[in-house]
């Protein structure tokens, strides 16, 4: 009897294993759908938005020291590159000396339309998510944008959305994307603004 039970247990484990193998490589989406019941506390639109905006794909180009950062470890940009006078590098060696309007798979150099550093007052590096949200809504620091304009910028600008199409590095390895899908991020940003863009107190 005990031997039979063991056999059934092994059979059950094998079937589960086969399901797992059959689904391995099913890359319809890199993101899984997580329902609120999976969490003790439901994630708010603000939480979702900020999981993206605090990711290095965003913060690397919002430095607090005028030096762009690179990579998942956010190291200072190689070759001494810095903001310069127009957020585009130096007089003769500009961002566009290497970065073009699209990613380059041969060299691994990333690119997107209007590739540049965020203006100095829009620094996010070193800020927590509450401070970033305050900065985003402050016309003195957001380029004079209204909340409506900020919402459009966050959800439509090609350089912002490049975060989900970051290309490959010089070794051909895909860069890490933000931890939330583009669709869920856009939905969360729009919802947060629709709800009155309230910054939670933490």
């Amino acid at each position, binding site marked *: 009897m005990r031997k039979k039970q063991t056999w059934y247990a092994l059979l059950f484990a094998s079937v589960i294993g086969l399901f797992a193998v059959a689904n391995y490589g099913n890359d319809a989406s890199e993101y899984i759908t997580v329902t609120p019941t999976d969490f003790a506390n439901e994630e708010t639109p603000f939480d979702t938005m900020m999981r993206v905006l605090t990711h290095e794909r965003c913060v690397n180009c919002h430095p607090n020291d005028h030096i762009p950062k690179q990579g998942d470890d956010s190291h200072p940009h*190689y*070759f*001494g*590159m*810095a903001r*310069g006078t127009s957020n585009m590098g*130096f*007089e*003769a*060696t*500009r961002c*566009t*000396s*290497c970065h*073009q*309007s*699209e990613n*380059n*798979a*041969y*060299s*691994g*150099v990333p690119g997107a339309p209007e590739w540049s550093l965020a203006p100095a007052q829009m620094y996010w590096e070193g800020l927590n998510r509450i401070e970033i949200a305050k900065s985003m809504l402050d016309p003195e620091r957001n380029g004079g944008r209204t909340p409506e304009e900020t919402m459009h910028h966050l959800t439509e600008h090609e350089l912002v959305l490049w975060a989900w199409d970051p290309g490959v590095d*010089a070794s051909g390895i895909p860069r890490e994307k933000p931890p939330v899908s583009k669709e869920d991020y856009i939905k969360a940003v729009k919802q947060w603004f629709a709800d009155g863009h309230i910054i939670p107190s933490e």
Partner: protein
Amino acid sequence: MTLSLNVNGAAQTVAITDENTPLLWVIRDLLELKGTKFGCGKAACGACTLHIDGEAVRSCSYPVKLAAGKNITTIEGLGNEENPHPVQQAWIDEIVPQCGYCQPGFMMATAALLNKIPDPTDADIDRNIINVCRCGTYYRMRKAIHRAAAIQKETTPKTEE
């Protein structure tokens, strides 16, 4: 596909299957202009630097499709033996090259710098000339850049105020 390029003042037409082919390989392998060098292939060393519409660009990281209709200048178009560019003359005067491989890229970067800053300071040079020379000719290059600025100043016709 067929692309029309303007290289060193001459119209060129190239047939290419991959429009994302780095401009470097079109310049070297299809147009047979071998002065522009392949170094790292990831826009880091600057050996492949040339000018596109007057701006210094790393051609190993520049898809040829973006060059269509633009003016491209390579080291061959900067000057020649009879009429060298101030940067080329300065490089000769200061006997800059050792192995020489990276020098065309440095000279193109320097020419672009002098177009923006005719009399660069050492700080200007440090910020803008960030190519890599494994022979370590940086000291001679700095002298040559200042010399090129002086030659350019001497040879540029003065305009009436």
